[in-house]
């Protein structure tokens, strides 16, 4: 089951790479980043049963890997992060919210919409935390290098 999920999330993220016209050489890495994010999300979602925390960790993993790859290939980081983030987007919750609104079931619609909103916020926080962490780490290593020189 995990292997199937990994392969499918790899394909989905690489497919998004094609839709967003990522450079051809980077498609493989896009898929890799997306797979990592989705597996982290899924593992934590099963472990804690909380999609908000799981999305935070998934987005965090995506952003960390995207930053590392961006440093390695000297390309903008969004090339890797955009395709990787898509599987975490709360499409299902947003869909359910919309569907309940159409059926005039506003109470359930609001609870789904709030869930979708929280997950989006968690993804945003995951991206930002990873960015700050990477910046702090790399600044420190550069600082040390300068001192030894």
């Amino acid at each position, binding site marked *: 089951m995990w292997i*199937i*999920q990994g392969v*499918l*999330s790899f*394909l*989905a993220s*690489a*497919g*998004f790479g*094609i*839709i*967003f*016209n*990522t*450079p051809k050489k*980077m498609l493989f890495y896009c898929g890799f980043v997306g797979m990592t994010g*989705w597996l982290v999300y899924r593992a934590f979602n099963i472990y804690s049963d909380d999609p908000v925390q799981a999305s935070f960790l998934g987005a965090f993993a995506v952003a960390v890997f995207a930053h590392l790859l961006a440093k390695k290939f*000297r*390309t*903008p980081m*969004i*090339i890797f*992060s*955009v*395709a990787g*983030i*898509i*599987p975490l*987007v709360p*499409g*299902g919750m*947003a*869909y*359910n919210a*919309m*569907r309940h*609104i*159409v*059926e005039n079931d506003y109470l359930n619609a609001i609870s789904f919409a709030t869930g979708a909103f929280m997950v*989006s916020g968690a*993804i*945003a926080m995951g*991206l*930002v935390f990873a*960015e700050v962490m990477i910046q702090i780490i790399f600044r420190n290593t550069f600082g040390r290098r300068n001192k030894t020189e």
Partner: protein
Amino acid sequence: MAIDCCLLAGRLMMQSGAETYRVEDTMSRMADTQELSATHSFVTPTGIIFSPGSPHHTKLVRIKNRTTDLEKVALVNDVSRKLSADEYTLEEAYSKLLEIEKVDVMFPLWLQVLAAAVVSGCFLIMFEGLWIDVPAAFVAGGIGYIIVTRIHELTRVKFFAEFVGSLFIGLIGFGAVQIGLGTDLDKIIIGSVMPLVPGLLITNAVRDLMAGHFMSGLSKGAEATLTAFAIGAGVALVFSF
């Protein structure tokens, strides 16, 4: 020349879907190499104001259309890095940028449609759908993507294109369930609309907001919200019958 070069690079990046702060960063880096001191740039999704400091005049370029073309972002980034590293002269960099503006590096449409179809099928299984529904999602996702691209080319109204696209996805999903080719309508539709989700806008909006570019962040957030509403409205129309 140096100012035009900076503006062209900024415009190309913004049109291809780069983050605002990266565009400003690239422009000021390029300006630094050309000994323009005290430059200021103000980048929004719809226009760039660039002030190269006295004695030069401030210039403005308007950004009319925006697409998602990450390869161009990478190419412009590469030119700016080589210019900073003195691998390119200003003339070389400018002619490279003009070249990048003209070339069409997009993947062919059939490949994009195939990618959208495969993505739809993958998401169906990732969201715990059944394998029996995969063909329906595959077809609905691919056709939905073609419709969105074609109508966007025809009308130039992005939200209308997304509305019609998701309407057709809903209809195809509904039809597939009616004739027995699918079982779970909800999962088919969720999987098939995933290629239309404004992922780039969401990521960029967040990163711009965190970098302190509130204008760009909010306007990109508004664009993403409108896109989401357009998709939702298209699917909702199918259910309201």
